[in-house]
């Protein structure tokens, strides 16, 4: 674990809330209660100002110019990469590939690592809990290579069935791709164990950490994962930014995925040589402001401490779960022993979509639908759930408002 994450900090909820301008906003005349953090999180003023400053003061392209603005932008961009590296405790900046998001990170691994190493009959293990972005890229890869997908089922609580997982592992397993925390149910998966088991079969492991980075400590070296993917926008940073961590030896061996500027060393029409890591995988002008903003988001999280955030959210989830149990007709979907601050649920006699509209009228923003995880919905034989996902800036009073709004919805459909 790195030193920054261990720092002692004070968790001051009022101060945190004051840093997020949007939280003062009203919706339908009522204070916003934003409980859709698993979809995307809000941005603190520190991030907003960082973006603003970039465009006002040193907007320019990176790794290209010798002029002052370009030097400044390049330094800020590379500085953000270092912050990201420290945040997940990778051993070198070369292992931090900047992408547009989790989705692109996963596609990069599928098309570069997957396509260059998998053969017909090779096996990829996924879980029933995956987001579509950790399913479809592998299906595309299977069509290209003839590899096949195996799926780890979940139990009624929404936990992976580890015995089944062990049974699926075998000499043909090349890759295991599983999320750290499920966006649909909140289950925290035993990724350490999953990785260890996969490695005993020489299989590589990709962890989809989209839901994890803002809610628990991530240490890629302690996990020993081969790839770790996440998005900046769920970590209080800008949309259109993301990270692929990969072990250096793997990344070195992988062919480039996208071709273009920045990812080359020399180009002639006869032969092109590629740039070194991490630039080999970063073709074209990236979201420069966004990446610098993501660095600011990480600074912000570090001033609070990810462990302190995690502890606070655990308390908030317990409170919300207890409150939910008092609501007539409310059934929580996903009751894993290890859960992040996500409350997925259905209501007797009220379709989630109607619930979402009614809650919005009470100023409460939740997500309703299949959460890009249709196989999870199929598992519970429901078309959709309503989902309240909590972040560090949410409070017990907000949970109370949410519960009151759910009760009000029940009145409408009484």
């Amino acid at each position, binding site marked *: 674990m790195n030193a920054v994450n261990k720092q002692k900090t004070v968790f001051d909820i009022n101060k945190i809330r004051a840093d997020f301008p949007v939280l003062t906003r009203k919706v339908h005349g009522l204070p916003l209660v934003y409980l859709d953090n698993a979809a995307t999180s809000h941005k603190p003023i520190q991030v907003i100002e960082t973006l603003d400053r970039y465009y006002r003061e040193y907007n320019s392209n990176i790794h290209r110019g010798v002029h002052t603005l370009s030097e400044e932008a390049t330094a800020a961009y590379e500085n953000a990469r270092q912050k990201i590296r420290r945040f997940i405790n990778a051993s070198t900046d070369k292992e931090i590939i900047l992408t547009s998001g989790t989705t692109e990170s996963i596609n990069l691994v599928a098309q570069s690592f997957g396509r260059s190493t998998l053969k017909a009959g090779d096996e990829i293990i996924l879980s029933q809990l995956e987001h579509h972005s950790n399913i479809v890229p592998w299906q595309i890869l299977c069509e290209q290579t003839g590899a096949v997908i195996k799926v780890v089922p979940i139990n009624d609580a929404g936990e992976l069935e580890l015995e089944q997982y062990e049974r699926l592992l075998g000499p043909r397993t090349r890759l295991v791709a599983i999320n750290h925390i499920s966006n649909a149910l909140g289950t925290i998966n035993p990724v350490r164990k999953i990785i260890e088991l996969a490695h005993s079969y020489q299989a590589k492991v990709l962890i989809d950490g989209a839901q994890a980075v803002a809610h628990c400590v991530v240490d890629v070296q302690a996990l020993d994962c081969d790839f770790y993917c996440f998005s900046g926008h769920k970590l209080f940073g800008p949309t259109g930014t993301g990270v692929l961590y990969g072990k250096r030896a793997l990344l070195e061996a992988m062919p480039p995925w996208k071709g273009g500027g920045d990812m080359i060393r020399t180009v002639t029409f006869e032969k092109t040589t590629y740039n070194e890591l991490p630039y080999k995988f970063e073709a074209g002008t990236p979201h420069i402001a966004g990446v610098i903003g993501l660095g600011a988001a990480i600074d912000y999280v570090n001033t609070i401490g990810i462990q302190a955030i995690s502890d606070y959210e655990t308390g908030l989830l317990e409170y919300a779960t207890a409150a939910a149990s008092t609501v007539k007709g409310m059934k929580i979907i996903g009751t894993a022993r290890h859960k992040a601050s996500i409350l997925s649920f259905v209501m007797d006699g*009220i379709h989630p*979509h*109607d619930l979402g*509209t009614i809650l919005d009228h009470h100023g409460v923003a939740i997500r309703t*639908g*299949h959460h890009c995880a249709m196989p999870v919905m199929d598992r519970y034989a429901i*078309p959709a759930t309503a989902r309240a996902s909590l972040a560090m800036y949410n409070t017990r009073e907000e949970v109370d408002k949410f519960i009151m709004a759910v009760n009000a919805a029940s009145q*409408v459909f009484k």
Partner: protein
Amino acid sequence: MMFDLKQLYQDVIVDHNRSPRNFGILEHADRKLEGYNPLCGDKLTLYVKMDGDIISDIRFDGSGCAISVASASLMTEAMKGKTIAKAEQLFNDFHHLLTAENAEPDLDRFGKLAALAGVREYPSRIKCASLCWHTLHAVIDGNAAAVSTE
């Protein structure tokens, strides 16, 4: 605001959601089509029986949110006995009602269907209200390819 939440989920909609009319499979239907709204997972199957160019019977089944179920229920009530030309006319009028700004619902023309005008305030919900209508439109257009979804 012209329509508030109470008006959206007014009694007509809650009632038609709880006890939808013309609900269930129509035996000996001439035409049948499934409509699907991936946003909320609404899945409705529409069954139509024609007598010449008159919709002699119409039923639906499936599951969906209150808006889509109530809309299908109200639509089947309104469509039974209509000629294809009249049905098309109502489809166009209703489409206008859902999408046009400030179109005061004409109660004479729409009757209980006017209850659905409130979804205008909720752009993401217009699809819920219009799902069964688009399905019917495809059915009476006799679009053979679309009709055979199974």
